[in-house]
């Protein structure tokens, strides 16, 4: 009886660790951050937390990482998101500059994002080109199109004469998008949350619901976990595989809106570089398995926050020269994943030893097919 209760507690703890280790990981990283700040003679305030919440890595990369998570859950990958962000933000800003209409701007962002995602999805799911290659190709293409466009488009429309897309200021809709929404914050009880962070949180919430509480979400997991079983249950596997790229495209559209509102411009040559790697890192830090089929969408939130916080920790250690910062980034990434993969392996070892010590019971428990 007692053993059984102990067992239950053990199971609960170990399942919490396995399913939500990303929360512990984030908390540990946050504590390290606070300690670093304090050691530098400053005090850790709610401002630090809200700056993690509103950093580019959180709101822009994080939003796209939601889509990346779905792509990875189906066992695929998307390397093109950084380039897609640039192209899509370009379209968004150009449409804004031309129409000065918020609704059209939003539609342009979402529509162009969807289109870019659909190109990836069709090539990967229906033309059966490996997703790695498809999105490597489109990574080159999307950015290069944006580079080309920014120099071809007249400065009145691109909003800048210097190889970037910039929102044209002056109108009421600019005031609203950039001032009220893009850089504004909601203040609650002394704590201020930027509106763009709220948008990101809403996206996470939406996709936590979609992944966990809709038929579609279940199909996404099933395709990544066992696509044969999914097929036998009547799921259209190709369509699901294509759709996750399209969803990612839509989220790139949302990220473009955030980019336009928060920053007001984008530079095709430099913006969004390596975002695919940051997004993958956020997804993996969020406990979502690279092999597909497993992981909680809420993990993306914590993964993105963890990644931002790691960044902040690294820049806030004055002794760390800029050259060596990436070494820490790489080490932390490997270490955190090692902890998460080691968990199950250690547990496996542990339980198999326990089983070994009661062979009779195990044998009596029966057989495998």
């Amino acid at each position: 009886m007692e053993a059984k209760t102990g067992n239950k507690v053990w199971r609960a703890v170990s399942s919490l660790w396995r399913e939500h280790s990303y929360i512990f990981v984030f908390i540990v990283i946050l504590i390290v951050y606070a300690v670093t700040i304090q050691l530098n003679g400053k005090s850790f305030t709610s401002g630090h937390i809200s700056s993690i919440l509103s950093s580019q890595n959180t709101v822009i990369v994080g939003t796209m990482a939601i889509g990346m998570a779905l792509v990875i859950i189906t066992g695929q990958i998307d390397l093109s998101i950084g380039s897609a962000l640039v192209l899509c933000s370009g379209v968004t800003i150009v449409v804004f500059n031309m129409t000065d209409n918020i609704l059209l701007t939003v539609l342009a962002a979402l529509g162009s994002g969807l289109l870019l995602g659909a190109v990836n999805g069709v090539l990967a799911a229906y033309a059966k080109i490996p997703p790695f290659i498809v999105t490597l190709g489109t990574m080159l293409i999307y950015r290069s199109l944006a580079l080309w466009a920014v120099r071809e488009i007249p400065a009145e429309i691109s909003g800048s004469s210097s190889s970037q897309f910039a929102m044209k200021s002056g109108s009421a809709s600019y005031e609203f998008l950039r001032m009220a929404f893009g850089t504004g914050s909601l203040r609650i009880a002394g704590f201020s949350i930027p509106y763009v962070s709220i948008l990101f949180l809403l996206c996470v919430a939406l996709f936590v619901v979609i992944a966990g509480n809709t038929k579609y979400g279940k199909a996404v997991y099933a395709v990544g976990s066992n696509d044969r079983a999914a097929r036998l249950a009547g799921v259209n596997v190709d369509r699901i595989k294509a759709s996750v790229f399209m969803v990612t495209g839509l989220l790139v559209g949302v990220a473009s809106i955030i980019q336009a509102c928060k920053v007001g411009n984008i530079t095709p040559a430099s913006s969004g570089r390596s975002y695919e790697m940051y997004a993958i890192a956020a997804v993996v830090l969020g406990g979502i398995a690279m092999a597909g089929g497993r992981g909680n969408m809420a993990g993306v939130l914590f993964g993105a926050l963890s990644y931002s916080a790691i960044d902040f920790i690294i820049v806030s250690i004055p002794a760390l020269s800029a050259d060596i910062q990436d070494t820490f980034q790489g080490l932390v990434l490997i270490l955190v994943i090692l902890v998460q993969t080691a968990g199950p392996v250690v547990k496996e070892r542990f339980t198999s030893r326990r089983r070994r010590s009661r062979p009779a019971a195990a044998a009596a428990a029966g057989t495998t097919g």
Partner: protein
Amino acid sequence: MSILEMTGVSKSFDGNRVLKGVDFSVEQGEIHALLGENGAGKSTLLNILAGVIPRDGGDVHFDGTHYPHATIAQMEKAGVAFVHQELNVVNDLTVSENIFFNHELTYPLGLLRRTEMVAETRKLFERLGVDMDPTRKVGELKTSQKQLLEICRALHAEAKLMILDEPTTALGNDEIEHLFSILRQLKSEGRSFIFVSHKMPEVFQIADTYTVLRNGELISSGAVADATPFSITCDMVGEQYADEDVYRARELGPVVLELDRLTSESFRDVSLTLRRGEVVALTGLAGSGASELMQALFGAIPLLDGEIRAHGKPASGSIRAAMRGGIGMLPTNRKENSVIPDVSVLENLYLAEHSLSARRQWIHNAREIAQYENLRDALNIRTQGPGVAINSLSGGNQQKVFLARWLNTDADILLLDNPTQGVDVGAKEEIYGLILELATAGKTVVINTLEIPEIQKVSDRCVVLYAGDVVAVLDHDQINERDVMLYSTNAMNAAKGD
């Protein structure tokens, strides 16, 4: 009234006719057993019925409707539920998510009625007497629970016709007993069932009617009450096997392989000694532990207890240890466990030899081709050359290549798990001859098979397992289809008990 009427159904795979105009019908409210040897065409017939694969010819009428081009979705909607022969659960979803997979209950916005589904799953389990937590991840379940889950999933669909293709291979007796009581109750509500099993007592316990297929043809059909296990077994097996007798008694050599109280999760306390030149058959239904015993001998799955000695020296722990001890294993499930699909016949043939002789890395192509030709001639392998893709060979010839893979290692203890899997009748005879030749030449052969004629033909002894226990060790003269079938389905013990 017939709920299902299949007439003249035929199907070929790559020119190989698997179903040759089969008629099959199921009455409303009956449990209909579909019986036949491995490879007789049962699963193929059922897959056609459920729209998993298209048929080449014939008609399917279900519940009064004709389905010329059935799809999975269509048949599901029409009221067919299918428990496939192999597990098709999604390990990363929870129990209740699997139960409702692709048929989730939703609110208007498409949101899942989560608590409702969990509650309904719980109710379902209560009704079916299943003890499982609906919120658990399926990956954490035991195989038997996964199989129960699949059954529950099908039962939950409340289909008019439920197909159960070997649903009980992983289940314990109590569970089977309970399943049967549920089936009986559902039957009384007017639902119909197709039930496939290799376990004869089950058939007599639960089925009302039966159909026997052999080689893709309808052999017999009728009421279970009018038949006996023996008559059905005879129908299944046919006559042709008993005919030729290649077996000859041989002088056996010293003990080469000793199993001492081997225990794993699938079998327990197995002790055996095997002699040089001996052929021993293991048999038992899926779940009997026979295949696992063989894998454990080869170091492919861990032992919980006991010891293996080859030539007097311990040979347990790993595959490489077993191989160095002179043990080779031809695994079952060729596609997953033997075929290296992307490389040639020659490379498939040589893989095991290469890993044994890795000290000398260089490959002598001419020498390998010469050896390939020897083996090809010895086993009569039909290929278009050593360089062709393994998948271009017929299944039987592939199987011979993998047999050759192990002959080529000079292993003197050969473990052959289901060695004639996919092998046609003629080629089977060749393999039987070869096994006896090998034994005469001093090799020790252990085969695991369900095919009793095979056992009769080659083995000096037959070890029958049931649910992880050795229930009988029969000498060559004692081996006959009826007894082996009865032991392996535990009908003998049940009969004794009754």
